[in-house]
């Protein structure tokens, strides 16, 4: 395996499309990544040669569908380095976090504490606030350093014997910073807290060895990892899943239903009420396989070269500031910046007119924006299929905005 950017790019049909007569420089991967032929084909094969409901049918299409669905679980599990039966398919990353907040959350007692950070995505804040209202648990927040990292120096002082769970972004969707998982797990052990990682921004950058990380829960989103929409993953240790009550009720998650009472199926089925997102899960399985076939040493180096090119280019434009780590260590290719005197939305809109797609605004991280008194940032998020021409187009657009809008 060696990394061939052009070959990778060629597998993504949308990147060959003309959007209003121009090719697209897609640098909004942190919001949603694009999807390769391998994924489109896997879903189409299911839809046109094996579509049926899973688990309950004895006919051939149902057998095909069930096999494809369970094989997708195996592929996702291989991507995470965990046993397949610990992989729960959900409707998305947000749904996976809500599952934990409702189910694991129902095992917590008033006064128990959950520790988050100030840079979390709303999806890793609001479910816990809702749990706080329901169940009287307390939330603590690890501050963020000036360069956009979770400030782990502050972690020990925020831990208490009542801390039951620490839930953090593996990689920040605003600054690209990766948290030091080893330090978090070690600190958590001192008080017996569980650790959950929100892997939404980490999963799109290659296989993860969860066994080595030593965390308890992991979640990520299909659509940000080159898979379809409508699918996400919750991984948790078997003993945890075993102890957790169901979140949603319905078909397939039951043992026996009587009018008086109902017993639950074992995990992962217990957490997959109703017909699961079969096609999307099959697509995500294909995406995980696709990612596992990539040379990530090469891909990551390529991504970091683009980050460097971007940071160098921005520094040459008067009045730009990067919000996030200045170096390339322990970070992923998500870069936020501000252009003094120009609102991020106007930067992004100008970039659009240059055919460059980025995101601008609060990135669903309002508490972080409030903390640093920012109106938002312009965020450039890269994938292995991006290349230097994308960064060049972006820099041209930023220069234009700097010249015309202030």
């Amino acid at each position: 395996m060696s990394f061939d950017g052009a070959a990778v790019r060629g597998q993504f049909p949308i990147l060959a499309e003309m959007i209003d007569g121009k090719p697209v420089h897609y640098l909004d991967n942190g919001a949603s990544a694009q999807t390769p032929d391998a994924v489109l084909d896997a879903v189409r094969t299911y839809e046109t040669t094996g579509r049926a409901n899973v688990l309950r049918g004895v006919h051939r299409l149902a057998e095909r569908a069930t096999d494809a669905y369970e094989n997708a679980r195996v592929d996702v599990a291989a991507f995470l380095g965990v046993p397949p039966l610990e992989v729960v398919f959900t409707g998305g990353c947000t749904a996976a976090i809500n599952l934990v907040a409702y189910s694991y959350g129902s095992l917590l007692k008033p006064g128990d504490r959950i520790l988050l950070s100030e840079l979390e995505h709303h999806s890793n804040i609001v479910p816990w606030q809702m749990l706080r209202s329901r169940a009287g648990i307390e939330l603590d927040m690890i501050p963020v350093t000036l360069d956009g990292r979770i400030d782990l120096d502050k972690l020990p002082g925020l831990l208490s014997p009542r801390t039951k769970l620490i839930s953090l972004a593996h990689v920040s969707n605003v600054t690209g910073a990766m948290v030091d998982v080893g330090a978090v797990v070690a600190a958590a052990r001192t008080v017996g807290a569980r650790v959950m990682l929100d892997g939404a921004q980490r999963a799109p950058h290659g296989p993860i060895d969860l066994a080595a990380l030593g965390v308890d829960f992991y979640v990520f989103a299909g659509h940000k990892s080159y898979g379809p929409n409508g699918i996400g993953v919750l991984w948790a240790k078997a003993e945890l899943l075993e102890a957790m009550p169901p979140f949603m009720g319905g078909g397939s998650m039951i043992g026996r239903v009587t009018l008086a009472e109902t017993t639950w199926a074992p995990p992962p089925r217990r957490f997959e009420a109703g017909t699961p997102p079969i096609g999307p899960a099959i697509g995500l399985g294909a995406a995980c396989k696709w990612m596992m076939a990539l040379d990530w040493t090469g891909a990551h180096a390529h991504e970091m070269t683009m980050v460097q090119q971007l940071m160098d280019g921005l520094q040459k434009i008067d009045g730009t500031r990067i919000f996030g780590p200045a170096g390339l260590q322990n970070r992923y290719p998500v870069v936020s910046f501000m252009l003094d005197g120009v609102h991020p939305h106007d930067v992004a809109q100008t970039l659009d007119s240059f055919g460059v797609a980025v995101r601008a605004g609060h990135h669903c991280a309002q508490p972080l924006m409030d903390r640093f008194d920012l109106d938002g940032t312009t965020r450039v998020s890269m994938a292995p299929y991006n290349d230097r021409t994308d960064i060049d187009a972006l820099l041209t657009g930023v220069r234009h905005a700097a010249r015309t809008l202030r």
Partner: protein
Amino acid sequence: MSDQLYQDRIVALAKARTGAGKLAAPTKSVRRDNPLCGDRVTIDVLLDGQGRIAEIAHQVRGCLLCQASASALAAAAVGRDAAGIAEMRHDAERAIGRAEGNAAEPFSAFIPVKAHKARHECVLLPFEALKDALS
């Protein structure tokens, strides 16, 4: 490059910052946020005895479109009551294609926003705040 949106008139309106600031003793001050994009507008108004705007000021933490809209609003608002402002809003809506008809000055400047649905709210946010201030 097809830089249709940021035409000179919009940029000029925004840079003019007509009415930017605060009033010393407003009759009413209303803040409105757009949660999706994070834009925030505060509008101060001083009303006369007939509910007409005597003075107006705005603080905008938002994009150029929102600033341009607040400027345009401030430039044309004095002397108008709630009904008059509703008419102006109608002009803004005409400009961005949310209502039928031709937009009057200065709101015709916003015609380039028509094609960008995601930005319509940026133009309308100052109107939302002013409407609250007049009610």
